[in-house]
């Protein structure tokens, strides 16, 4: 069993496209939330007369866990759909996981990753 965890930071405005692109290559389960990123892409702000250089920009973090064979298509799908070409497009990080469970059934490992009979 080989399973990967993929963490992706993208622009908020690209979320719908990325989600659709991923669905097309078979990634149906993802989890996401709002994050803020500090990086090079900055937008100057003035609050009540005080300019504050903030590089803080709202982003969405998506994580999903998938079997290895889905990895490449998923990454490519994201690279394409999340790209604007301007600074601040975000990153993808991949790491290993050692085990997984599906809470509903208690299934473990590989089996937790896909629905019996749907593959």
């Amino acid at each position: 069993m080989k399973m990967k965890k993929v963490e992706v930071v993208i622009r908020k405005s690209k979320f719908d496209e990325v989600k659709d692109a991923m669905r097309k290559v078979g990634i149906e389960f993802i989890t996401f939330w709002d994050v803020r990123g500090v990086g090079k892409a900055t937008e100057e702000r003035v609050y009540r007369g005080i300019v504050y250089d903030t590089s803080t920009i709202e982003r969405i973090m998506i994580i999903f866990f998938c079997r290895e064979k889905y990895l490449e298509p998923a990454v490519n799908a994201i690279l394409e759909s999340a790209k604007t070409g301007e600074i601040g497009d975000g990153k993808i990080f991949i790491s290993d996981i050692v085990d997984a469970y599906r809470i509903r059934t208690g299934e473990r490992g590989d089996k937790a990753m896909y629905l019996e009979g749907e593959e």
Partner: protein
Amino acid sequence: MIHTILQTDILSSLGGELENYAFSINTIWVLITASLVFFMQAGFALVEAGFTRSKNSTNILFKNLMDFVIGTIIFWAIGFGIMFGSKNGFWGGIDLFTRNTYRTDMPDMAFLIFQTVFAATTATIVSGAMAERTKFNAYLIYSAIITLVIYPVSGHWAWGGGWLSRMSVPFHDFAGSSVVHMVGGMAAMMGALTLGPRIGKYDKNGKAKAIPGHSISLATLGVFILWIGWFGFNPGSQLAAAGKVNASAISLIFVTTNISAAGGAVATMLYVWLKNGKPTLSMTLNGALAGLVAVTAGCDSVSPGGALIIGLMAGVIVVLSVEFFDKVIKIDDPVGAISVHGICGAYGTLMVGFFSTSQGLLYGNGGALLKSQLIGVASIASWAIFTSFVLFRLLKLLNGLRVGKRIEEEGLDVYEHGETAYNN
């Protein structure tokens, strides 16, 4: 003989006093209802902010503030004269800084403030339909021009002694279903049309997608505030409260206004429930507003029962209209301003021709009033559509109307104002 001499004598000496009180009573009434109408600005701000996304909240709130601010100054400086001057049947002429005399039954300043808050309402309606993608400076310009000329001219026709009020059967728009709301709604339509839909509103196949607003709590509060504001808007338009006739009129107006709003809300709720299987609040809020807008033209002359029917129908019409604009014509109107104010404003004005207890078709008075209402609606709508079309085209050409793609995507708050609405 002695009798009558004495009597007139005494009466005149007391009559002055009495008249003073009538004057006071009218003034109080107009000022307090003006305050309530002013409060509608907060209502609009909340409804529009609530129905749009949080990344644009600062922007939409800012626009709602500034249209009132600019309207206040411009309407006082010029607009008021155009609307209420007596130049001719088409426009009232110029009365710089409103220094002429207009009323004898209340101070001119009371009349001015009441009309100011009305004028600002028209402008503020537009911002909702054009939300989430309009340049801030373009907004300031067009909102100024609406208060400067578009609203005052057609306002003059109906309320300032202009040609609509001089027809043999005068056009009847008591508190502004057409004069205020339809004008705002039509300008909103031309604005949203000129702008085009928000990014992401329609997919590649042209299918409308939902873009839920960020806070239905704010939107609901906004509707409650608008509702109480309407208790100024409609009864205040009587412009008097002294004497039994006026007192009875404003009381009836309270009741018809309230019942029509209730009718709108209940009809929308039930209709959506039947159609989509679930009662939804965001649409029902529009339904209540639709009932309020629709009864505004005839609130003084329909019965409570008539008001209920007008409201009930408005509640269905607004749903059909929202879907029509969204799915068929594909004009993207985030808050439903075109349907609520434009369509229901026109609809409500026409209904007076049917439901007016003294002149309406349904009460056996023939179609004369209805004809006048048709003429009124058609002419005011044409004026509003034509002038705002020219306005928005020119603005687009000369200044640009829409923000850039990046700004729209990341939010107008950060790029146009350097300020996000929500922080920790």
